[in-house]
């Protein structure tokens, strides 16, 4: 049975883009032990030679006509959704 360490949780939090508090990290450590432990039952299955299924319709490479549709959504409207903007651009804290 997989047992998660706090260092495992820290690694997964990085992959997940989450800055967890200590209490959250512990709660999630316990949750992951429990859930990953449970889903491990798939080990019982023999899936040799079975092709994986990623989607359940028979659709394949559905194409759209090369036609521009105007949804009527303007740039200003989209910018208004941004937490911070200036000069017609979305503003974010420094990158470096």
């Amino acid at each position, binding site marked *: 049975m997989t047992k998660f360490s706090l260092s495992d949780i820290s690694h997964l939090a990085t992959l*997940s883009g989450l*800055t*967890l508090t200590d209490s959250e990290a512990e709660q999630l450590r316990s949750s*992951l032990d429990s859930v990953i432990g449970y*889903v491990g039952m798939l080990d019982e299955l023999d899936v040799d030679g079975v092709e994986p299924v990623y*989607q*359940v319709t028979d659709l394949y490479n559905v194409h759209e006509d090369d036609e521009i549709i105007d949804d009527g959504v303007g740039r200003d409207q989209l910018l208004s*959704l*941004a*937490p911070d903007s200036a000069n017609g651009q979305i503003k974010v804290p420094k990158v470096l």
Partner: protein
Amino acid sequence: MKIQDFLDSSAIDNVKKALERAKSHSESGALISLTEERAMERAKLVDAGEISGRLKGVPFIVKDNFLAFGGPTTAASNMLKTFDAPVQATAVEKLEAEGAICIGKANLDAFAHGGSTENSAFGPTKNAVDDQRVAGGSSGGSAVSVALDIVPFALGSDTGGSIRQPASFNGVVGVKPTYGMVSRFGVVAMASSTDTIGCFATNAADADLIMEIMAGQDRRDMTTLTRSWQDSPSLSRKKVGVIRQFMADGIDADVKRATTDYVEKLKKLGYEVEDVDLDMAKYALAIYYIIVPAEVMSNLARYDGVHYGHRSESARTLVDLYGKSRDEGFELENKRRIMIGSFVLSSGFFDAYYLKAQKARALLINEFKQLFEQYDVLVGPVSPTPAFRLGENTADPIKMYLADVMTVPASIAGLPAMSIPAGVSSEGLPVGVQLIGNHHADHSLLMLAQEVEELA
């Protein structure tokens, strides 16, 4: 309360009264917001004859993970608390085009992650019959809105049971259609290979009408099917299979009884009933809780505090921007699923978990396929128990997830499944029965449910 009750009255009257009913039930926690102003504007247009259709002036409620105008679309999350949708979901547009009027947004588990509507950032929704119990989830608010007769129908989404289970818990009809039947455009994505859009209503005929209006190919969702809603395989062999694994010893006696009672009615309609085995049912929850968190993790990556949604005020660097915005915006259950998803997709574990689950998925799909070669409908309960108490399952994620054992199989296979009211428990709590059909059998299943409703 039926749709036809509203067609002859003025839209303004319908909307005013629905809003009053909504306000009178505010302690239920069913609604996050009312879209009062816009509803009244549209009601005026309907009464002036400018908008008409099969749902002329009929008020309805939409789960708050559907983008809609008239108020914020929050997904019951602090991440999107003030999000003003620039477009509406296709499903909402189609209903509005037939004259229906949205009066408000229903509560849900944040980002639809949950089975009780206790994970909402804005408080839980209580069961329509017993306010000490959960509404079920994640579409709890929508189910309760219909059960309390606030509106005759409401929209929901079902990824692993989120329409069917609250429908069963509140005594209303809940439809999970064939995957691809209704466009998911404009609905906050959860797990893209199992997400479906459906509805709640008090009776099968109303549910059928709403689904038919919403169904259809949409160029904005390339997974939508071309076949029409009405073009449904008939249940001509009249053979029903009761899934043995769903009627096992651990299941609540009242829940089993509701299914067996319903099956007696099917026999009256000339259906032949047999017990059948869905051996892969044992693994369905494990398959689900590997695949869905992986897809959730991918779909929730877009909430990064940059373009829209919550941004942390204490972010000083880009890493902080993502990490803190997401930690502040999401509920614990959202983080749990994201973390599980990261794990099963991560290097060294991908093959053992995610890939294995997608192969196991093929086995489950094949089992259903074989059953449908002989049977027209598969029947069983919706959930192992009636509505549980508030707080009862929140401490242990597995305990909460186990409520989904009977609903996830149809989700994994993309099959239509209806939750139909089938009685009450010894404590007076509603219990539903689940009708699962082959691909595209949606309309036929609802017609069958209607036939059973009409039985004396």
